């Protein structure tokens, strides 16, 4: 215990001392401690070690013997060292420990009870200090040497440059043992101690010396003796099983017969084989002869003797056959197939993978000059690779005639007549010609333009017959329309905010002219007889229908018969089929909704505003047309067309062409007759021409976008004689279509584009502004922004 105690102390305090003693073996250390206990004087290490080895047991007994005294002693002694510890140097402490040990070991009583001692720590509290356990020789554990080098299995040469050779188990450096001088070495070499090997113990770095026992062991191993002492190799044999036969058998049963009779079964099997060999069923192995092997390749039976159709799996794709060779592969091709220099160079320069053909056509002239084809094997090899390595995909190749894709349109020849060329140009207007109309007889056309004049021309000759200036220059004539019906020639023109009704003089025969004048004059009487409208209410004033007035003298002279002051600029005039009514639309944004659409009765000189309120959705009204046979008025605003039944005062239908801004529309002349339902074409400023079949849907049946600019006007051929319609666009072209409406409900209308008529020049972003058809012929007239009108036939 004392030793342990001492070592603990040492650990705690006496570092430098230990460092000095570190190189000594553990026993010596212990001995050192004891040595201190035994005597003060000398640090005779050698003696102490001996003693330690001898009386360790006794010491243990001593430890057990006295404890009380020790305790008391210790208390006393504790007082002293506490002070001493405070002031004294480590060496004194070192000395103190041994003294204590000394005392404790001397009084060997009752150490059983107390294996600790109580000390005062720095704060003056009790501190139990246990004795260290001394693993003595009885311990199971091998005596772990404290000074064993722990560097592990590495060569010592790593530490050559350091003063130490490793670390002990406590992490302390193990200093290199003092090497003797050369003389010492010499002496060492001269007197070889017992067990000297000349080797160095790697764990300690000291010369390895073998003990006597070890040497004996080695000798025994060397002499092939049994190394262990006391092993007797010739011990008497202990028989576990008896080597002697018993006389009596274990079982009394007699030996079975099969033990000494040959096996029948085996004989049977052998006989079988013998028989088979005799019969030739089993042949001894004979390697096949050459003939047999050759025979193997020969086919000796018909594989398809009982062939049955076995359709391939639907996903099976047979390998495509190689295409047959073309002319260019011939050994003597026609000369035009031979590549010229440029082609040859191009072929040579392209990558072999990119070439369209893997060979260049060559002309050899005669068969004897044809060489072998260089890459024949390679080509066949690649074919083999293709056959088993290439994924096969069925690709439907479009092998149809592109012509068959084209829709079967009736040829233009069959659809003739339609206007194809410009036949006459009407020049005279200054500025744009805004509107054009062919009169119902088809002899004259009326035009109105930016210069404020309305002119009447002879259609075929292009001669100007009549001209009247209706407004100032800045007030253009927006629209001119002839009254339908051949009994009279009445021209309605909208210029400025007034509508003028005129009978162009001296162009028709006098009777017709008179009839027309009479027609217009008849209304004056009716208007006079009718009670004057009340102008009292201010609010009503706005929507009061205007009174028709007589024109000024100058205008009256030139043929104008009546003026309707609308107060707003009318952009559209459309006559009823009978010629008694016409509808005007003032599409300006500032026009109040209630007065935008006006229906005028010629026979009564009466103007009515049928709509009180604004038409919902789509801005101000743009244009309006009467249905050709029913009392229905179609009114278009910017986005929709609405059909109103005039007799029942109902909204019948809403058509939604889907255009942003409708410019004009027209109703098919045979609508709602025996031949099918209503068909409407709509032109819009967003370049669309839409065909509506009202029976089908609200939405367009066909949407045509062939113009690059806005469409200004659309028109069906009147009377239904020719299934034609045309549109006029700002891109300066007219497009003529064939639009046939069939009688039966099953077939839809066929629309065939026929002709693009170009001739009008684009001036100021505007091209063709209006279009009209001849009532009988397949001719059309157009008014352009370039100041000309053209007749197309």
């Amino acid at each position, binding site marked *: 215990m004392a030793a342990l105690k001492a070592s603990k102390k040492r650990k705690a305090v006496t570092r430098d001392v230990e460092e000095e003693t570190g190189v000594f073996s553990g026993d010596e250390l212990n001995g050192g401690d004891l040595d201190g206990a035994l005597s003060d004087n000398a640090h005779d290490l050698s003696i102490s070690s001996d003693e330690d080895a001898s009386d360790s047991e006794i010491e243990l007994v001593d430890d057990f013997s006295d404890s009380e005294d020790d305790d008391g002693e210790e208390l006393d002694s504790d007082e002293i060292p506490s002070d001493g510890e405070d002031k004294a140097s480590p060496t004194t402490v070192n000395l103190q420990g041994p003294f204590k040990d000394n005392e404790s070991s001397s009084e060997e009583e009752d150490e059983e009870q107390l294996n600790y001692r109580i000390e005062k720590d720095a704060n003056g509290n009790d501190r139990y200090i246990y004795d260290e356990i001394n693993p003595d020789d009885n311990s199971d554990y091998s005596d772990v040497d404290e000074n064993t080098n722990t560097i592990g299995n590495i060569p010592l040469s790593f530490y050559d440059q350091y003063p130490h050779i490793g670390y002990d188990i406590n992490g302390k450096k193990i200093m290199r043992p003092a090497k003797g001088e050369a003389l010492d070495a010499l002496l060492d070499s001269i007197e070889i101690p017992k067990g000297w090997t000349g080797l160095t113990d790697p764990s300690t770095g000291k010369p390895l010396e073998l003990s006597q026992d070890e040497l004996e062991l080695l000798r025994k191993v060397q002499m092939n003796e049994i190394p262990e002492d006391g092993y007797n190799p010739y011990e008497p044999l202990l028989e576990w099983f008896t080597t002697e036969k018993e006389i009596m058998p274990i079982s009394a049963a007699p030996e079975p017969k099969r033990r000494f009779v040959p096996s029948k079964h085996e004989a049977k099997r052998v006989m079988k084989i013998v028989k088979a060999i005799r019969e030739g069923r089993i042949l001894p192995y004979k390697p096949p002869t050459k003939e047999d092997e050759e025979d193997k390749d020969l086919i*000796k039976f018909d594989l398809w003797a009982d062939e049955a159709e076995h359709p391939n799996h639907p996903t099976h794709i047979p390998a495509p056959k190689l295409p047959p060779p073309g002319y260019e592969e011939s050994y003597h091709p026609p000369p035009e197939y031979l590549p010229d220099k440029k082609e040859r160079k191009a072929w040579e320069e392209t990558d072999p993978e990119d070439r369209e053909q893997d060979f260049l056509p060559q002309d050899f002239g005669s068969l004897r000059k044809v060489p072998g084809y260089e890459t*024949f094997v390679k080509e066949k090899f690649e074919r083999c690779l293709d056959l088993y*390595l290439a994924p096969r995909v069925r690709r439907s190749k479009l092998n149809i005639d592109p012509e068959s894709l084209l829709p079967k349109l009736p040829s233009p020849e069959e659809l003739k007549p339609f206007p194809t060329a410009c036949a006459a140009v009407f020049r005279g207007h200054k500025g744009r010609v805004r509107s054009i109309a062919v009169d119902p007889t088809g002899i004259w056309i009326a035009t109105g333009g930016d210069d404020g004049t309305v002119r009447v021309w002879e259609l075929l000759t292009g001669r100007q017959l009549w001209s009247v200036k209706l407004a100032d220059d800045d007030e253009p004539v927006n629209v001119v329309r002839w009254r339908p019906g051949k009994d009279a020639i009445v021209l309605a023109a909208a210029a400025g905010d007034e509508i003028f009704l005129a009978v162009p003089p001296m162009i028709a025969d006098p009777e017709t002219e008179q009839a027309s004048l009479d027609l217009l004059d008849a209304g004056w009487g009716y208007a006079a007889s009718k009670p004057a409208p009340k102008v009292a209410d201010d609010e009503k004033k706005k929507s009061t229908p205007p009174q028709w007035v007589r024109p000024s003298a100058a205008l009256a002279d030139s043929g104008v018969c009546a003026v309707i002051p609308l107060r707003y600029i009318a952009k559209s005039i459309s006559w009823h089929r009978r010629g008694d009514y016409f509808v005007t639309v003032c599409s300006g944004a500032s026009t109040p909704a209630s007065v935008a659409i006006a229906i005028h009765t010629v026979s009564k000189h009466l103007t009515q505003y049928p709509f009180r309120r604004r038409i919902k959705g789509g801005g101000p009204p743009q244009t309006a047309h009467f249905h050709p046979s029913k009392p229905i008025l179609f009114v278009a605003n910017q986005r929709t067309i609405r059909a109103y039944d005039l007799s029942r005062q109902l909204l019948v239908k809403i058509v939604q062409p889907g255009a942003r801004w409708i410019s004009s529309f027209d109703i098919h002349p045979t609508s709602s007759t025996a031949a099918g339902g209503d068909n409407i074409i709509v032109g819009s400023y967003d370049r669309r021409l839409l065909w509506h079949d009202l029976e089908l849907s609200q939405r367009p049946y066909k949407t045509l976008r062939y113009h690059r600019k806005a469409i200004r006007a659309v028109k069906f051929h009147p009377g239904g004689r020719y299934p034609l319609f045309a549109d006029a666009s700002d891109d300066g072209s007219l497009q003529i279509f064939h639009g046939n409406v069939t009688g039966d409900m099953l077939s839809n209308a066929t629309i065939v584009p026929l002709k693009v008529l170009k001739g009008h020049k684009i001036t100021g972003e505007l091209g063709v502004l209006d279009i009209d058809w001849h009532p009988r012929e397949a001719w059309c007239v157009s008014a352009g922004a370039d100041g000309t009108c053209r007749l197309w036939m």
Partner: protein
Amino acid sequence: MAKIKKKGTSGQAKNYITRTQAVRKLQISLPDFRRLCIFKGIYPREPRSKKKASKSATQNTTFYYTKDIQYLLHEPLLRKFRDQKALAKKIARSLGRGEVGDAARLEKNHSPKLTLDHVIKERYPTFIDALRDLDDALSLLFLFANLPSTNHVPPKTIALCQRLCHEFQHYLITTNSLRKSFLSIKGIYYQATIQGQDIMWLVPYRFVQRVNGDVDYRIMATFVEFYTTLLGFVNFRLYSSLGLRYPPKFDTRSDENGAELAAFTLEGRTVGDPPKAIEAGNKQSSNANQEVSREVQDKVDKVIKNAQLDQASEQVAETTEEATDAIDKFEPAAPEADTLPQPDLSGDQAGSLFAPFTFYISREAPKAPLEFILRAFGCKRIGWDTVLGDGAFTNNEADPRITHQIVDRPALPESSLPAIPAASEDGAVQKVRPGTRIPGRTYVQPQWIWDCINEGKLLRPDLYAPGATLPPHLSPWVKPKKGGYDPRASLAEQEEEGEAEAAAEAEDSDEEMAEAAEDKPAAADSESEEEEDEDESVDGGMDVAGTDDDDESEEEEEAEADFAGFEEADAGSESEDEEETVRTQHQKELEAEAAGLPFSGGNASAAKKKSQTKKIASKKRQEEEELDRQKMMMSRKKRKLLEKMMYSNKKQAEESAKLRSKRRRLEKGGGN
């Protein structure tokens, strides 16, 4: 809520399997898998979406159908492959122990024999199926038959390929089912029709094939293994369908002497014994005199034919008596009608093409293809030089029975030719100096044979005389297409309207002037030499209407003028000018007629030509307009499709236009 489907458990992910997975599933090595795929005809598939089919991110994966691989799992060949693998291990072990003899014994006796019969039956359930797939087989086997033996290609394989190919050729000869052949720069293409199936294959020219390093013979050998079995069965079936014994008798000795086709002797199965007896008697004599044996052989052939094909010959007789049985050729009366495909060349016709002739093949001409083709087209007597091998009808070039001789050497001037040797009576083989012309026979170049069989009739041999520049050799498989270039037709026929004029205009104009100058004097004396005039006008290639008969030209002119006026009605002011010119011309003509002078259109012809080109241009424009008009009515999708198709058509048209322009240049160059 529906159960959430797990990814990769159905659809494409299940239907496709990568190659690695397949190999792992079958538990064989990759080379074995390759062989198995080749034998079984299993090929990779392209999944519709690679991403869905594959679990990995690798792009270049090969996919197979899972069902295909599953079907391979039950393949008996798989066991053979495994046996082979086990044997290889055993051999390796014995070699490792140094027991070479043991290894040799194992290899010799225990190597598993692959039989591909069941595979062929599986892949080609009917005989027709097998015939349909014979193209590649024949091409490859003919190549291998012509390969030199190396350590990759054992001589046994080559011999087998040669035997099978010759057997097949013999069948074609007997049934006259070879239809077409074509000499290309790669080799010789043949096409035969067997039981209604067209089979085309390519035979290389007889030169040592150059083999580049990047050819894997193991793959080709696998194909050859399969194809030899296939062709063996096909040959057996073909022979037995004719009542012939298979395999035919093969004379090894004769084969060694270079008689390729002639080494085989076909024998009837039913009348097996008599020919055999003849054969036996023949054997001794054949060694003594080759010629006699050939004659006897011919007799034998005849006997066989009579025995086997009695009915056929009767039929032939019948057809000759009653011409009504033959198929008439239908010619469409109107050009716009559809033409139905008609059977070309029956076997009987093919068999009689060269029947009456005796051919002699000169040394320099390729014997093998010529012999095959001549025999397949009915020629029985073919002689050749002794150096070309055994089996000739005659080796004597001076044999008087020879009607045609195939030579392929440049013509020598007549004076340099050696004197014609007198025909010897004893019939001994006489040496004739090369280049000698023996009178009474036709000398042709080999191409004549090919052109004749492709045309199905005998062509003029003088075009193919030795030394003559041969007419171009054309592929018989190219059918004239609409818009395609056809070298057979004349340039004028297939040119687009006005193309020639445009081309001519584009070229230098002085040539034109010269021509016009030439025309003028011709026109002047047209009355005296009308015939000449006509010829000239034809030669000139320009329609000089004025030189023809006056009345005709007038009428034509008038009609044309009317037509032009009608067409040009919408063309505006240009047309008016044209009409005016036409009118004035007409007036001039009338005046000239009144004066009794021949009206010369010389001056007017240039203008007329110009007007014609204009007319054509306007017509083209009209057509374009019409197309645009039609396009306007199509939906966008359809329009796109149309444009795509138009693109390919346009490409073809460009190609043919290029060829035409080349030809025009050539003709011009050759003509002037």
